[in-house]
């Protein structure tokens, strides 16, 4: 990350705040590429580090903007955008992994313990999350911020401008709905039901 990118992203953030959606898209691209880099090691499981998604998002964000030097409203918007970028990175990764897996089939000893319905398939999660956002965008956003962005309930409450207890309730509703939707999606995909 060079200096010009730092300046650039701050300008983009300001332009976005002023209503320039192109600036937001450009900022998203920057975040996406940063996140891809910082999360690569973790996703390859090369190292034993225990960075959470939230750490990654913060790390990538820090490489673009000194968070403590921007206003809170900007910061929260920025982190929310980072969460979205993180979601993209992880979905991309999961899809790539999935297609790799198909390429060379291998017999595993741990064959049957996983009920297909219980497996957390990123692809199915993503599809379910898109469905949820159609039904209730606010709840889908909270999932994005929490699960992909690693933001705490308190942080999310500040970003979305609701009380912490409201956010928590919405989170629980969203999670229950998603788990249910994912089972449904999984079963259909497996052709078992």
């Amino acid at each position, binding site marked *: 990350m060079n200096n010009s990118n730092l300046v650039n992203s701050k300008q983009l953030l300001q332009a976005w705040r002023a209503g320039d959606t192109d600036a937001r898209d450009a900022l998203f691209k920057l975040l996406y590429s940063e996140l891809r880099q910082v999360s690569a090691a973790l996703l*390859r499981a090369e190292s034993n580090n225990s960075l959470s998604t939230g750490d990654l998002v913060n790390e990538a964000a820090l490489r673009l903007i000194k968070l403590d030097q921007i206003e809170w409203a900007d910061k929260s918007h920025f982190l929310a955008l980072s969460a979205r970028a993180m979601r993209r990175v992880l979905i991309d990764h999961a899809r790539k992994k999935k297609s790799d897996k198909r390429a060379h089939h291998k017999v595993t000893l741990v064959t049957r*313990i*996983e009920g297909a319905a*219980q497996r957390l398939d990123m692809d199915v999660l993503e599809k379910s999350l898109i469905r949820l956002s159609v039904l209730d965008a606010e709840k889908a956003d909270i999932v994005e911020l*929490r699960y992909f962005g690693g933001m705490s309930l308190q942080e999310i409450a500040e970003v979305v401008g609701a009380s912490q207890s409201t956010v928590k309730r919405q989170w629980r509703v969203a999670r229950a*709905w998603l788990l249910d939707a994912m089972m449904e999606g999984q079963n259909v995909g497996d052709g078992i039901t």
Partner: protein
Amino acid sequence: MSATGSLEQQALALLETALEQPSPERVAWIRAQAGQDEALIQRVISLLEMDSSAGATLRTGGASRDVGQTPAPDHAGPYRITELIARGGMGAVYKGERDTGDFEQTVAIKIIRPGVLSDSLIARFEMERQILAKLSHPNIASLFDGGALEDRSPYIAMEFVDGDPITQWCDTANLGLDDRLWLFQDVCAAVQYAHQNLIVHRDITPSNILVTKAGQIKLIDFGIAKPQSNVDLQDDTQDAPGKSLASLSFTPGYAAPERAKGALANTLSDLYSLGKLLEDLVQDLPASADIAAIIAKASAHDIASRYASVDALIDDLKNYRTKKPVDARNGGAGYRFSKFFQRNRLLMTLGAVSVLGLTIALVITQYQYNRAEAALFHANERFEQARGLSKAMITDVYDAIEHIPGTLEVRENLAGIVKTYIDGLASDPNAPDNVLLDVAIQNTRLSDLYGGLGVANLGDTETSYVLLLRAEQALSRLLEQSPDDVNAIDEMVWVKRLKSNQEMTYQLDMAAAQKTNAEGLALAERGLTFPGSQETRLYFRLWNSRTDRVKILMYENDYDTAISEARRYREELAASNFEEEPRRRNSRLGYFARLEGEALADRQRWEEAIPPLVYAVSAYDTILEEDRSSYYYNLQKMTALGPLVMSYLKLERGEDALLAARGAVELAETLRDGDPMDASGRGYVATQLEMLARVQASFGEPSQAQSTITGALDIRRAVITDFQDTLGHRRDLAGALKTAGVVYQTIDMTETACSTWREALSVLDQLETKESLTEIERDVWKPEILEHRQAADCPE
């Protein structure tokens, strides 16, 4: 946007409120809230169950962990992990060594990933582990130990088997039929032992049956095995199909056909798998009629035709080995057994079969029911998705971008897609409530897009009004069906408001506007008495309708009532303890102050008009400090500046007037530049330029005034060219010409003034022939212009 009626959205909303209740009361509460809607009740209850079994899934920041591969832990209990054997969706199997040093032992450690099992499934896993620990058989891999890691991931430590899958081993060793049958008999003995201990393997496949280097059979992966009991049967049936951990766990080809239909696993499904395994083991060898018969009987499609137990299979294999006739071939049950034993076995078999038959019938019925349900669900779901998508586009997406400058074109594209769709929806005579509400909402949003007041629009006011009528129609139908539906009332109040505004502004039908406004006000006040109305926007919409009321009173020249109503509302607002954002409150206070000031200015009570107008401008400034790009508040501020400029002008406060007028022009330009396709934007700029020109004519440079007013007239004419059929734009031109005349006369360009007024009169005449002249234009503007012309000695 108000809450809408799709089952899923209702379920989400209901679950959210249910979670506010104490946990034992939730189910009862859900039933009470949902009334007769059994589908909704079931949906919410199933989501509630999902919530309680969610465990640690989807944890904060958990995404990377769920995607990335969890690094191997160093230890699991007393075992040191040495290497990864295999990894699956739910966890991984590692090789481990006992670490305590007292004795050496290599184990296989299966670790379930944190978060993939709910608490109830973890409990089940624990239970199975305890039962498995009791099994001790040379052909079953022993279970040594188990527990949980620090992060609560459950693990089990099993005998480490260094071996190959049975089929592979037989092929590698190039075994003949007899040797293969011996190995198979060992497998059967191990399964029989498990069955005697009430454990079903459930997943007998070659990869779960290993042969060690010493040639010993080891059954592995009883991980999904669970005890045979009535409680359990019940469990499985309820969960079927597909939802329990175990019932999904089978390998196609090896699994008994009834299991694919969601039936519970039992000893006979294991028997079927054994038959399939035998088939696999002998498939490349010369055919044997007896063996083929044994395979056929073991893996008979019809459960009742299979061997009654694994013992019977073992017996028949022995028959084959000892060259006796196999049962499988003659079907006879038992000349080799004593009559007594024979009768008992037969009874047992019959008993088992009938119980099984009953269970299977039940399961199949359940399965078919679920299939029908699922088909319906998916059909509904597709519909919901299509509806949801269109709704998302027109409400969520639309609402999100509505006030963002520069999105007009995007919104136009959205409209085209959605309009076709909702026309189809609305034509359904059996459309349920929630669809009607959607139709209404989407029509309303579309109406905004085509010609909404106060929002960037396409300038097509006719289409806009028609869409509102459609929304009104859909809501009337809905309210006939359910008069107490607060969401419908909420939306209807909004539609009435938009309609009244259009009647007032575009159609200049004041009587219609007042009637519609009164309907909306009454409906809002009625709606606010219903439970649940506080979840809607009714309160805000009541206030919106009240602002309209004041505005309409003003249009109707009933200024005194307008002023007193505005004051009354301001006082009521100031005293109200309704909790709302300061921004909203400011906005509303600003609005009434502005109307009050406008009315006073219209009454030419200039001194009195200034304080409320200054109050309004500062209220909007406060809001704009937070969000400078807000279309709405820029517009509101600009509108408040208009009468303020006029008041300053009349009081001859030239400096103040110039400052305010320039500010208003800037705001108008901001609004216009934000959305170049927005027809209103240009109109605003023209209006503010007209006002500025008047101030400049009196207190500034005459040349400036002249160029300013020319700019305004150019805009007015261009807008008419673009939107020929909207009479309002012609009315605006007439007003602009009238003002321009005054400007020209003030700067001593009397000739130009006269011709400008003449043009103004001819535009008004055109409007009159179209019966679209308002009282103000006919009774105030026209005489005024005529007076001006007379005073200026204009030629006829």
